């Protein structure tokens, strides 16, 4: 019986796969047609003319057809039951996570020194700035948003607003009043926290999608205010010549009063970057430590309980209003400090750095890393931010695809494909296991599928 059925089944699967692939191909054609098929260009007499690109359309449709076909053929009929990870595997993962954390910190501490040793002070500059500082800033932002989204389950799509508040706080206070960076850093954090509460208050009653929309609008409002309040912010032109960061009063300049002279070093611009790198690293590690402590404290547990079930929280006497506001304020203050560091790194801020894309990127780090997982978010930042920076370095590909090929243009495409893939294979993010905050006998990891995603 069994054997006689098999060929029939495989034939029908072949048929199903073909239809499925054809549908996917048709959808791809529908998508491609308006985007890819035609392109306007200008000829020498400045006339627009239409350029058709049918081979590109055929390639895209064909690719989708083949991919979908193989996927459908390989997929087993019934949905695979999601086997929870075995305890030994979970234990191994947890141990690995512990070592990965420690090793990661060591690697980060060594990173600038290794770069300088390998590439010399001038060559290392790019790597420390574009990779090191850039990634660390995103790790910091991701960890801040992780408190709001990952722990408290409040979907915030306007997180970049607090980053902007911090950046402009430093830019304005330092340029107009000459406040030092060390004073501005906590002020930026506090100011952003105040904005967090200001946002939190009106949206407390909103949940899930509604909260996401309003926070997104809030992010846009802040950006538009920064763009249009030209008297204060200089609008789209931004604020330039923000005072550079100093080493506790010693500026990073050549000369007898500079940092290099203080330590008897030969002046190199990379010193400032290395200092900034370690500063952000120190702040990130502080944030990480405090978040880990928070998870074992009543407030952090209340955050997680809020994510799991807000109504149950209220029935147990948890003041959900205060708890949500605290989550917003904590997350915002971290973004605010990251913003101050961002302004100190660029010496220039303008509203274009704080678009919705930034919020989406930071949220992607949290979601891809595994909401609630500190290590996961850091890994996601390294992969996504580092990966898209690496694309800039792939100029060699021009030799294959022609001089018009610009790998950075494919950045978002690759991130998008990575997202789709991740959500397919690891829907709960890279690290989908939750470590209990307290235990009687032995901590058992909780499978991510059980944990709530938060509706409020």
């Amino acid at each position: 019986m069994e054997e006689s059925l098999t060929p029939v089944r495989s034939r029908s699967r072949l048929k199903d796969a073909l239809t499925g692939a054809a549908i996917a191909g048709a959808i791809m054609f529908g998508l491609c047609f308006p985007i890819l098929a035609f392109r306007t260009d200008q000829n020498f007499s400045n006339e627009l003319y239409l350029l058709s690109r049918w081979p590109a359309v055929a390639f895209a449709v064909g690719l989708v057809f083949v991919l979908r076909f193989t996927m459908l053929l390989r997929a087993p009929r019934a949905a695979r039951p999601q086997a929870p990870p075995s305890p030994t595997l979970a234990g191994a993962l947890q141990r690995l996570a512990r070592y990965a954390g420690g090793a990661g910190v060591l690697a980060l501490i060594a990173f600038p020194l290794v770069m300088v040793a390998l590439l010399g002070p001038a060559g290392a500059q790019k790597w420390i700035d574009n990779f090191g500082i850039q990634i660390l800033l995103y790790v910091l932002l991701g960890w801040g948003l992780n408190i709001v989204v990952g722990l408290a389950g409040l979907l915030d799509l306007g997180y970049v607003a607090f980053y902007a508040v911090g950046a402009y706080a430093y830019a304005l206070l330092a340029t107009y009043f000459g406040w030092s960076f060390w004073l501005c850093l906590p002020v930026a954090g506090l100011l952003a926290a105040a904005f967090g509460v200001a946002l939190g208050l009106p949206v407390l009653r909103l949940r899930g999608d509604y909260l996401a929309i309003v926070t997104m609008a809030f992010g846009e409002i802040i950006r538009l205010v920064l763009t249009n309040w030209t008297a204060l912010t200089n609008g789209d032109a931004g604020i330039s010549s923000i005072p550079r960061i100093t080493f506790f009063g010693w500026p990073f300049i050549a000369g007898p009063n500079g940092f290099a002279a203080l330590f008897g070093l030969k002046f190199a611009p990379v010193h400032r970057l290395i200092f900034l790198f370690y500063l952000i690293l120190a702040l990130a590690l502080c944030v990480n430590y405090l978040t880990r402590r928070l998870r074992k404290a009543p407030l952090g547990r209340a955050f997680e309980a809020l994510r799991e079930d807000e109504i149950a929280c209220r029935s147990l006497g948890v003041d959900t209003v205060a708890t949500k506001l605290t989550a917003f304020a904590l997350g915002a203050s971290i973004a605010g400090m990251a913003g101050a560091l961002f302004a100190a790194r660029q010496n220039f801020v303008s509203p274009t750095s704080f678009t919705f894309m930034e919020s989406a990127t930071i949220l992607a780090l949290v979601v891809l890393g595994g909401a609630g997982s500190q290590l996961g978010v850091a890994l996601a930042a390294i992969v996504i931010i580092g990966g898209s920076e690496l694309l800039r370095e792939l100029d060699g590909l021009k030799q294959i695809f022609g001089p018009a090929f610009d790998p950075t243009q494919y950045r978002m495409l690759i991130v998008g494909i990575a997202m789709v893939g991740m959500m397919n294979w690891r829907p709960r993010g890279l690290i989908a296991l939750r470590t209990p905050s307290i235990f009687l006998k032995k901590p058992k990891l909780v499978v991510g599928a059980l944990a709530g995603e938060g509706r409020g």
Partner: protein
Amino acid sequence: MARDKAPLLIVDQLTMRFGGLCAVDALDFTARGGEITALIGPNGAGKTTLFNCVTGFYRSCAGRIALARPDPDSPGAFRADWREELEELTRSTRRSARLEGGEIFLLERMADFEIVKRAGVARTFQNIRLFRGMTVLENLIVAQHNRLIGPALDLAGRLGFGAYRARERAAIETARFWLDRVGLIDRADEAAGALPYGAQRRLEIARAMATAPTLLCLDEPAAGLNPRESHELTALLLSLRDDHDVSILIIEHDMSVVMAISDHVVVLDHGVKIADGTARDIRQDEAVIKAYLGVADEADIAAMGA
């Protein structure tokens, strides 16, 4: 049952409307301290709505919900009749008043979390609401949130340092006690969402008890339990009343449970109270038989435990 116990919860003329629908209509009833009061009635009678009003999840449209909370340290000192003080409190704009040996509250003036925190009313839900991704132990620790956070200015405590350690140890002991009581101590480190249904029901009761309530409101706790489990539940509830000094307000459809444990039964139908008395009285009440069962069918009356 002796009816000389002090009133604990006094509901006066409570009304709750949803648009045109009057879910609870000018309801009066009293639940006494140290008793198990059962609230029964057909589906849609307004029982859960009443719970939501008492626990502050809904703002009632009219009426008064008053609760007395004797101090746990001096249980005997609280007066049996606090009607007069209640009238005085109602005229004022305050939410609570201190009397000798206890405190009285007007619950309709309080927010939901304050009702748990200050007035000591804990509840469970008709559809179980556990923190599914947190462990059994964590569920009970969150229930002790207010005791754990300590004074408002104890910032070190907020982050888990200093005096927090001792508070946390006490909370773990409380959790251990209640887990032992409901037979879940061996599963303390498992995710709540991974427990079987009956265990989840018991965990929800343990979690409510961990808030150290004066009044425990249970919304259909025996729903979906097998006969052995509902027998155990009966024993548990009686022991909560007798050994742990908790008064219970229970919504329940399983008549064998209601008859076995309740000191006092209130029957609702379409938001209106149609009967109020001991389990024995209710069983023989014509109006109840008619309303609750639709038609008085011999088999259904038998099911009521008559």
